[in-house]
């Protein structure tokens, strides 16, 4: 049985703003579920309704099999960590943590024991006598956690608890939060706008956009099988490259179906072609992840690389690596040490992606000096790729790693789940492991 069941949860404000629209969500016992989405997507509203701090317009929230819509927050047995901690400034750390136990009229000795256990769990043992203004940001965050865990709640809510910490501490606290979660085992609903947090922390992740649930699945599935354009761009950093393209059979390669991308063509092998058969001869949105692009064999950089005609850049049937290629002009290279982000432009129209996707896109594209026109794509390459701004490059593309979306609905056309992972896939999972 689910610890938290949310059914058709809707919030309409008096102003008519529909903050949340028919949210369905289940959190199992001991599960860590992340609600993620751009700001204003309704995730905090949803959390506050679960906590009882916001009135529910329609739908139900249940804990176990008990509908709690009309239960006051103080009787819900819910613990919540607030974005700005909301510590009681005039009370010591000890009193802050113990406040909930005081309210439950727990006897003093027992209270003291529980406070000390919670404090020890979070490494706050030496700070019990301090007031919040004598604590650093990380310590305050820990006190906020302590205040929540001391009650051994059945439901644990967190509203962007790490967003006020600096980058380094945030990474550190991520594992801390997970460790605490495992030790208390309560069903947890965690709200964040940071897709990295969602991917690294969640057992399951619910992606919200405009008050509507886009997809609710494991991080891996969100990444591999995004349900629509929004999820595709929101999950993954840098964001997936999306282009308007056509699917045709009457290309140069005879009966082989091809993706027509601007003036470039990419033949699809039969298994891939079968999945998009229904869109034959129609327009699609084609997506490729930055980490699925690799510089193909010979002539990695520089103008006039062998095998590439300078005038009409085209998908080549087979590059030196044996995979089809995508010719692009490099505009900007960001060296991150362990990897490079290569911003390029191809002669294709970037898809006017789902609203909000632009906000989710990597802002770093706007930084730095751009050479000749705005880039419309990004690749994540090894630092030794030798790619330089101003050069022309051919990216090897594994057709199996392409994503296809319906241009009208934005929905995914086919799923990648059972496709064999290509070279890029292996590379990606290696990366995913190293960046966690």
């Amino acid at each position, binding site marked *: 049985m689910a610890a938290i069941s949310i059914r058709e949860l809707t919030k309409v404000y008096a102003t008519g703003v529909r903050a949340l629209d028919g949210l369905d969500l289940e959190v199992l016992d001991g599960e860590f579920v992340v609600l993620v989405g751009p700001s204003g997507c309704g995730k905090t509203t949803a959390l506050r309704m679960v*906590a*009882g*701090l916001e009135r529910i317009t329609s739908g139900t929230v249940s804990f176990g099999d008990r509908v709690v819509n009309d239960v*006051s*927050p*103080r*009787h*819900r047995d*819910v*613990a*919540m960590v*607030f974005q*700005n*901690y*909301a*510590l*009681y*400034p*005039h009370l010591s750390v000890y009193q802050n943590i113990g*406040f*909930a136990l005081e*309210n*439950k009229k727990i006897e003093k000795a027992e209270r003291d024991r529980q406070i000390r256990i919670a404090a020890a769990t979070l490494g706050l043992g030496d700070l019990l006598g*301090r*007031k*919040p*203004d*004598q*604590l*650093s*940001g*990380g*310590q*305050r965050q820990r006190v906020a956690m302590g*205040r929540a865990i001391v*009650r051994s709640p059945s439901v644990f809510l967190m509203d962007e608890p790490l967003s*006020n*910490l*600096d980058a380094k*501490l945030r990474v550190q606290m991520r594992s801390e939060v997970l460790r605490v979660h495992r030790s208390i085992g309560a069903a947890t609903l965690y709200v964040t706008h940071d897709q990295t947090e969602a991917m690294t922390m969640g057992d399951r992740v619910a992606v919200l956009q405009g008050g509507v649930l886009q997809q609710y699945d494991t991080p891996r599935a969100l990444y591999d099988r995004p349900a629509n354009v929004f999820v595709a761009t929101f999950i993954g950093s840098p964001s997936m490259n999306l282009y308007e393209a056509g699917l045709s059979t009457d290309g140069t390669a005879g009966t082989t179906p091809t993706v027509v991308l601007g003036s470039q063509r990419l033949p699809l092998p039969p298994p891939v072609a079968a999945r998009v058969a229904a869109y034959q001869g129609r327009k699609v949105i084609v997506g490729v992840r930055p980490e699925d692009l690799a510089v193909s064999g010979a002539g990695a950089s520089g103008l006039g690389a062998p095998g590439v005609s300078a005038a009409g850049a085209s998908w080549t049937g087979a590059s030196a690596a044996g995979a089809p290629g995508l010719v692009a002009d490099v505009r900007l290279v960001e060296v991150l040490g362990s990897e490079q982000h290569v911003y390029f432009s191809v002669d294709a129209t970037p898809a006017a992606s789902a609203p909000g996707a632009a906000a989710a896109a990597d802002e770093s594209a706007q930084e730095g000096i751009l050479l000749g026109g705005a880039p419309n794509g990004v690749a994540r390459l090894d630092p030794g790729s030798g790619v330089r701004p101003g050069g022309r490059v051919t990216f090897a593309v594994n057709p199996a790693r392409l994503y296809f979306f319906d241009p009208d609905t934005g929905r995914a056309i086919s799923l990648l789940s059972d496709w064999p992972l290509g070279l890029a896939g292996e590379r990606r999972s290696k990366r995913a492991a190293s960046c966690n």
Partner: protein
Amino acid sequence: MTASTLSTRPPDADPAQARPAESRRERRKREQLEERDAVIPVELYGLKRGTVTVLTACCVLFAIFTLVPIAWIIFNSTKTQANIFGTFGFWFARPFEFFHNFRMLFENVDDDGTYIDWFGNTALYAVLGGVGATALSAFAGYGFARFEFRGSKVLFYIVIGSLLVPIGAITLPLYLVYSKAHLINSIWGMILPSLVAPVGVYLMRTYIRLSVPRELLDAARLDGASEMRIFFRIALPLMVPGLMTVLLLSVVGVWNNYFLPLIIFSNNNLFPLTVGMGLWSQHATTSGDQNLYPLIVMGGLVTIAPLIILFLILQRYWRGGLLLGSIAN
């Protein structure tokens, strides 16, 4: 509010380590030094030295204008009636009668009543009225600031609107209502109206909106606290500086109230200082047989002294930063 303080230290530096447990004196010293550091030289405001001198001179003139009556009352509290009228007002004169004048306050003059009784009455009215008004302002301000309920705006505007009604306009109805309610010559007739403090409600509402964050109340609710407990345990401590302001204002308001006691009291024993001294002052001009003027001057000095002391006591509550560390921003 906290941003400037926080940004001066590295994000996760331990602030308490840099600032070990300090005594109250050390803390005051540090705060003084920090204040001095925060002073920005006038040049950085883009002001010329000359402008600053002129502005400072204006301030000094205004300060003198304000302080002159207080200086006068101090000098003249040491004089005999003859000297009050016969010597320079801004210096001492022989004989030095300060203590004699002070002693006279404890005597029944002209059968009007004793100053010290009136002082006691005033203190009683001010304490009960002031504390009561502060408490009610805290309740009402908290309600208006932190709860949404139907009609809250209208009610609040009514409270504020009551400020616009001059007391003179309601004297007659007030008297009639009081006589029906048997509040004439009753201390409750003085105290009950003093409990109503629209300014206090307004001030507390504003103060609570700034200093008692909604999240804190939400957190307390989720922590299982009842609304009563949230008010007394969480909100009230954070409201203290605002409460002290309201307390001072309402105590001063009751202390200096002349008109209300004038119309409701006919019994000299219930008079507050304002009405009692007004009576003296009338007798001083009409009869003139007693040496009443030194008493009035001394009485005036003793009347303002408690308010000055109260202000000095309460001013330590006007320290910001009570919320420091609670809310990250």
